[in-house]
């Protein structure tokens, strides 16, 4: 449906978007994930027609958007921090697009009701936007973008300014809204949780280029390079030496397939390590010492010092005697280790 082909947007000599190819299918939700300043918002603005293309093509439903002004493009854009019109009430904001389309007033009113119903804000038409809470403003902004019945809905950090509880609530509601609207969705965020939860596919962007486009599960299991891995919060990366299908690591030797001989970097996924005092000497693993216990979201983790660095391991269930200072053996599941291609990304860890 949407085809972005080798798109470049330069600000003077600085390439904000530097050759991006991306497709969004009918009813598909694609998230563009990247650190701030990577060019992801500029990409959205280019699709909306707010930034002129330096090069490349943007095609929607077989039609080249290049010559169309922003108001002629069948896309909806939800801005970061909403950008609601302060001089209009909720109905005035949501009905703005339909009114611009020249629809008769009854139809405009119907569109307002329809869009507000979609975001669960029935009968709020006459309220002033300044009176709304942050979450309500968010939903009004979404309703405003939806009221024009866009072929493509674009959202720029839509949940960025909300507190955690509200964000989690909207994370549940949004897929439902996307499904009911049924158009393509391009979703820009710097938060991997949002991207992995909402998107059918995630495109990771860095310095104006896409590093990887993949389904969330694939992205998580097999990040394309160390930058992607670190941006997703996967920091357990080790050096290894491959010789004839076997990688020598601090855990011992583990089998790898289709990797040429030489030095590589290995990503140890969070569930690759487990506490296993019963592990035999022949299994890949490590001896270490518990330094502390840590809670992360819904999980309890043990921080273990071993082989000169710290590892995070899921804490075994049940009451535990693994106090700081006690020694522990870690077992490595070789199938949950991923070989990272490309050069070391030590120097560009995400901020």
């Amino acid at each position, binding site marked *: 449906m949407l085809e972005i082909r080798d798109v470049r947007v330069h600000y003077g000599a600085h390439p904000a978007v530097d050759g991006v190819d991306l497709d969004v299918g009918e009813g598909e939700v694609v998230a563009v994930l990247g650190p701030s300043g990577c060019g992801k918002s500029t990409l959205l603005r280019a699709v*909306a027609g*707010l930034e002129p293309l330096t090069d490349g093509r943007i095609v929607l439903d077989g039609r080249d958007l290049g010559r169309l002004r922003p*108001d002629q493009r069948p896309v909806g*854009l939800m801005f970061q*921090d909403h950008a609601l*019109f*302060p001089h209009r009430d909720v109905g005035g904001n949501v009905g703005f697009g339909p009114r*611009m389309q020249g629809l008769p007033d009854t139809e405009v009113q119907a569109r307002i009701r329809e869009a507000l119903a979609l975001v669960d804000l029935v009968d709020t038409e006459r309220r002033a936007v300044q009176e709304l809470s942050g979450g309500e403003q968010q939903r009004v902004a979404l309703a405003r973008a939806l009221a024009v019945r866009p072929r493509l809905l674009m959202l720029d950090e839509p949940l960025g300014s909300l507190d955690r509880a509200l964000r989690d609530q909207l994370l549940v509601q949004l897929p439902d809204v996307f499904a009911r609207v049924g158009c393509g969705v391009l979703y820009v965020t710097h938060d991997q949780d949002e991207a992995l939860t909402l998107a059918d596919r995630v495109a990771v962007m860095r310095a104006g280029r896409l590093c990887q486009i993949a389904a969330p599960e694939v992205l998580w299991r097999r990040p394309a390079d160390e930058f992607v891995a670190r941006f997703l919060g996967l920091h357990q990366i080790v050096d290894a030496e491959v010789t004839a299908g076997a990688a020598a690591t601090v855990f011992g030797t583990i089998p790898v397939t289709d990797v040429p001989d030489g030095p590589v970097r290995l990503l140890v996924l969070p569930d690759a390590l487990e506490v296993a005092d019963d592990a035999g000497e022949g299994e890949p693993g490590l001896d270490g010492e518990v330094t502390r216990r840590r809670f992360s979201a819904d999980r309890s983790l043990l921080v273990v010092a071993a082989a000169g660095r710290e590892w995070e391991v899921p804490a075994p269930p049940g009451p535990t005697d693994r106090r700081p200072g006690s020694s522990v053996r870690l077992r490595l599941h070789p199938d949950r280790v991923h070989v990272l291609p490309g050069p070391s990304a030590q120097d560009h860890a995400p901020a």
Partner: protein
Amino acid sequence: MSMRIGRGVLLGVPAVFLLVFFALPVGTIVLTGLRPEGSLDLGVVPRVLGDPVVRRVAWFTLWQAVASTVLTLLVGLPGAYLLARVKFPGRAAVRAAVTVPFVLPTVVVGSAFLAVLGPRSPVNTALTAVFGEGAPSLDLRRTVTAILIAHVFFNYAVVVRTVGGLWSLLDPRLEEAARTLGASRWQVLREVSWPLVRPAVASAAAIVFLFTFTSFGVVLILGGVARATIEVEIYRATVQLLDLPLASVLALLQLAAVSAALLVYGRLQRRVTAQPLRSAASTARPPRTMGERTFLAVNLAVIAVLLVLPLAVLVERSLATDAGYGWDHYTALFGSTRNTVLAVAPLEAIRNSVLYGLAATLVALVVGGCAATVAARPGWTGRTLDRALMLPLGTSAATIGFGFLIALSRPPVDLRGSWLLIPAAQALIAVPFVVRTLLPVLRSIDQRLREAAAVLGAPPRRVWREVDLPIVGRALLGAAGFSFAIAVGEFGATVFLARGQTPTMPVAIFRLLGRPGIANFGQAMAMATILMAVTAGAIATIDRLRVGQVGRF
């Protein structure tokens, strides 16, 4: 105890100043007008108002003010948008240049337009060069057109600063949001931008209306005998006709009209809606399309022709002599020991202006500084004082000058013949600008800084010296420069008060212009050029100091 005394001084200084130099003179005028023979005679009001000449003057005052306001908005709004939203090389310089006319003395503006629109202007020289001797000759002197153009020249900066100031802070994504929702450029302007900047447009319109309604120097110089605003008529009634009741009733009429305009202005100010504002740096973009580049070019051309050309011609005229160009007029100004027109050496006028200006600046800073300190604190006292100090700005300078003349020359305050009168009148007009400049800075000081200093052992006066003063210092310097520029250029009140032997520069220019002869005209142009350089220099100093709020209401 000492705190309360400090408070009393802070409030007392501006209050007494306002009482003696504003309430007393203006009040005396009102009473004199209504009591021509010592007893209250309201009959004079209908008599004056029924006079067809007065009616004509009132009607002219009103319609030229309305026309000037509309024209200024038409020319100024695109300029405001340009300077707020479009990034181009030299934008800062253009923005500074646009501000200069606003602070130029009315006499300089009048002289400049006399030079541009008169028969000897370069425009006519160019026409003759192109079409030969039979070319149509442009002479707009003593026409309404000249007055209107000069008013636009003068008030362009008001629109650019007031509207552009808000425009540059408006979130551009509101307009982008409207674009993605299907609004054309025109619809964005009508549906989003206009409603958001409308309050600023309205207050700019109110200020321009106020300034042009009370226009004095420009009309006096460009209008000739036939065209007079109420303000000019007050001057004539006093100085030429010696008809004090007429002058008083006219002053009353003007006070009423100005008060009404100020009331509307106050209303409009209150209706400003809270808006999401962005830092000005993030909202401007370079022009991209052909249309945007054309818009830029057209506006820069307007600025060049309307704002730069008159000043350039002024300088050109000051250098033009019978035999080409030279410094003749300047040497004449500095050379002759005694000028027949001025009754003193022209150099004296410059010296007078600078001395009066410095004194006025000192007075304005002390009074304005005290007032701003009081007004920055929460509570009704500060708010009331702030509003009261705005009143002189809305009162005609001629009324103030005239009021000084009759009220301060007899007990209880007898300052007859005192040199103090001129700086006091000039300070009265400069004080509102000082307060406007200092107040936002004072209000922006985090109260916790003062609290921290107090907790660390600083007594109140020490807190002021260690916290407030260093932060306000820069704004104070800016206010000083602005006050000086205003005082040096002040004409309306000074022309009443400056006696024959102590003219200031604007008064000297006016007297020179009133005499026939190319030498007098050239010397007037030379004097106006010097005056322009002095005020522009003061303003350039302010710009260097980056005091952002100066001249914004």
